[in-house]
């Protein structure tokens, strides 16, 4: 039995949300639509307003203006304890004086459920996060990863319509993070709960979320799937913030339906599609480091071929990064996958090199 499509799309809707602290707008006219069952990430650096936005969804902050609806019901005026929403806190906020079992049962007891049902649901949650053996422990007797699973179990125990995750992996170390993020997604998907998460870590957002909203200075700049925001950023900020990008500024010199050319101080860059712009307008181009090829000898390509001097080489194991200085003074970052165990390129510091990219590699950015 599937819910009607109208309810599936835009299950959670925020419209024109504004939150001002004194005169500063922490969240500025944000509108979002989250679909039922998806994991939606709010991504941005600290101070971009993502946490304030999450806290408004949870009910800890009252919006200055704007509306929030969940499954068609206006919730912006409800206090947190009356919302069908649960949150997993960045610090986990586990109750230190209660056992794991009582932490998970806390929300169920507030609902006044019968004892038998509470214990059944707590047992289910403990099995889900594989902590049955730790039910009697106090939070401080658990490792960071275990505490995180208790926090998740506690926030899922009430079967919320919306699960909020505040920097879900922020308190874990790097190795544990990778393992945990898949576990977390598996659990959330097996429960089927709609989820909004906040993170400053783009890898975390990309690997966990089905869609991402990139935020900066209280505004949402772009919403899209991880691939969309990486491959088709809509502005300089997103291109630069998500992954790494070499940005070129220039002027549109040729615009035809199937191709265009941008004149930059570094030379003319060819793009394999039209952009319906006005010749003479200023444009930026973003080229991802991994989409640029590098070689010592001149390759046989017609466009987008440049020269430079290798200033830095950094070996990262699975790939290497080259920083190449162009004659114009601009530095370009290039990454090459280390597909062989030997160094095949033979490129070293201060070498003169050629680098190039295909017509479809660059993204044009108008803002």
């Amino acid at each position: 039995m599937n819910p009607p499509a109208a309810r599936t799309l835009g299950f959670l809707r925020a419209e024109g949300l504004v939150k001002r602290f004194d005169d500063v707008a922490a969240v500025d006219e944000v509108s979002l639509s989250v679909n039922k069952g998806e994991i939606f990430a709010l991504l941005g650096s600290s101070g971009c307003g993502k946490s304030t936005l999450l806290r408004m969804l949870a009910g800890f902050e009252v919006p200055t203006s704007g509306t929030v609806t969940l499954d068609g019901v206006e919730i912006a005026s409800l206090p947190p304890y009356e919302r069908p929403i649960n949150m997993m806190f960045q610090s986990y906020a586990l109750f230190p004086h209660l056992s794991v079992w009582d932490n998970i049962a806390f929300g169920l007891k507030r609902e006044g459920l019968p004892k038998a049902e509470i214990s059944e649901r707590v047992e289910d949650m403990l099995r889900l996060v594989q902590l049955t053996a730790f039910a009697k422990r106090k939070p401080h007797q658990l490792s960071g990863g275990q505490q995180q699973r208790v926090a998740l179990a506690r926030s899922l125990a009430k079967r919320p319509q919306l699960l909020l995750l505040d920097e879900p992996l922020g308190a874990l170390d790097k190795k544990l993070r990778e393992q945990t993020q898949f576990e977390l997604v598996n659990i959330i998907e097996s429960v089927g709960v709609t989820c909004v998460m906040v993170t400053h870590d783009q890898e975390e957002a990309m690997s966990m979320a089905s869609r991402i909203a990139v935020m900066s200075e209280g505004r949402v700049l772009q919403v899209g799937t991880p691939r969309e925001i990486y491959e088709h950023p809509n502005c300089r900020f997103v291109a630069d913030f998500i992954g790494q990008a070499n940005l070129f500024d220039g002027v549109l010199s040729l615009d035809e339906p199937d191709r265009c050319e941008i004149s930059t101080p570094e030379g003319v860059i060819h793009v394999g599609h039209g952009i319906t712009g006005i010749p003479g307008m200023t444009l930026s181009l973003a080229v991802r480091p991994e989409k640029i090829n590098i070689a010592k000898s001149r390759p046989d390509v017609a466009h987008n071929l440049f020269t430079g001097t290798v200033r830095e080489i950094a070996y990262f194991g699975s790939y290497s990064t080259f920083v190449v200085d162009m004659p114009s003074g601009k530095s370009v970052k290039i990454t090459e996958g280390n597909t062989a165990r030997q160094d095949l390129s033979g490129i070293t510091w201060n070498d003169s090199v050629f680098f190039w990219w295909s017509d479809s590699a660059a993204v044009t950015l108008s803002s």
Partner: protein
Amino acid sequence: MLAFKFWPGRRFVIGVPFLWLLVFFVLPCLILLRISITDMGSGVNPFAPLFDSADGVWRFFLKYDNYVAIFWDARAGFGQTIYMDAYATSLKYASFTTLLCLLIGYPFAYFIARAKPSIRPALLMLVMLPFWTSFLLRVYAWKGILADQGVLNNALMALGLINQPIQMLYTDISMLVGMTYVYLPFMVLPLYATLAKMDLSLLEAAHDLGASPWQAFWLITVPLSKAGIISGAMLVFIPSIGEFVIPSLLGGAENITIGRVVWDEMFSSNNWPRASALAVVMIFLILFPLALYYHYSAKQSSTLGVKGGA
């Protein structure tokens, strides 16, 4: 840490207060114990030797009469002594004082702890302000307030609420008002210390899970401030059991507390051994169980208030 461990001054710093306590606390206690087992009655040298072996035979003069007299009366029987009554009275007043201090002090400490950080020092200063004047003066001031022709009665009569003065001075009311007033800061400060360092995201988590503000207070704030409640209660309860000045100045003839009895035995009856025995019994009856309880709960509460995660 290594350098610190071998720093000779460390022993000195710890040693000096310990030496101080040894000389001025442990030794007096031992002297008290020693006096309490000498011959009872006035006019006897309380420092008379406890044993004599002059003629080669050891003779001990250890007397337990003082202790017997505390618990047993020849006519009334076991437990029916003025001393036992005085212990009971002291326990009653100390318990009520502690309870009143907790009831008044908890909201007090709570709102200071939740006040804007910029005004917290000023509010704490106000809590400690009474200490700037003499304790005796402050207790005397309550006499002026609570007396039949005092400030409060005059005010109530002027307002027409009462026709004749209510007897407040030298009653339970004046005793409890005075004790609660004097000991309130000792309750507020430890409570403030625990409440101020509480992780507020725990309350948000409780609200998030469906607890109303009132439920979150009882289920999260109160249990997590247990350590502060216990130490505040100790700081009020222990000194108010032995309190002498307030019962003497504000208490009536029937409010015979153990502090007043010890004073009377010591200075009116000049019966040092009896007074010492009363003090020793008080220490054993009250302080030891409390010390054990405190030790146990300190151990337990040290595991609380730990923030989850990093």
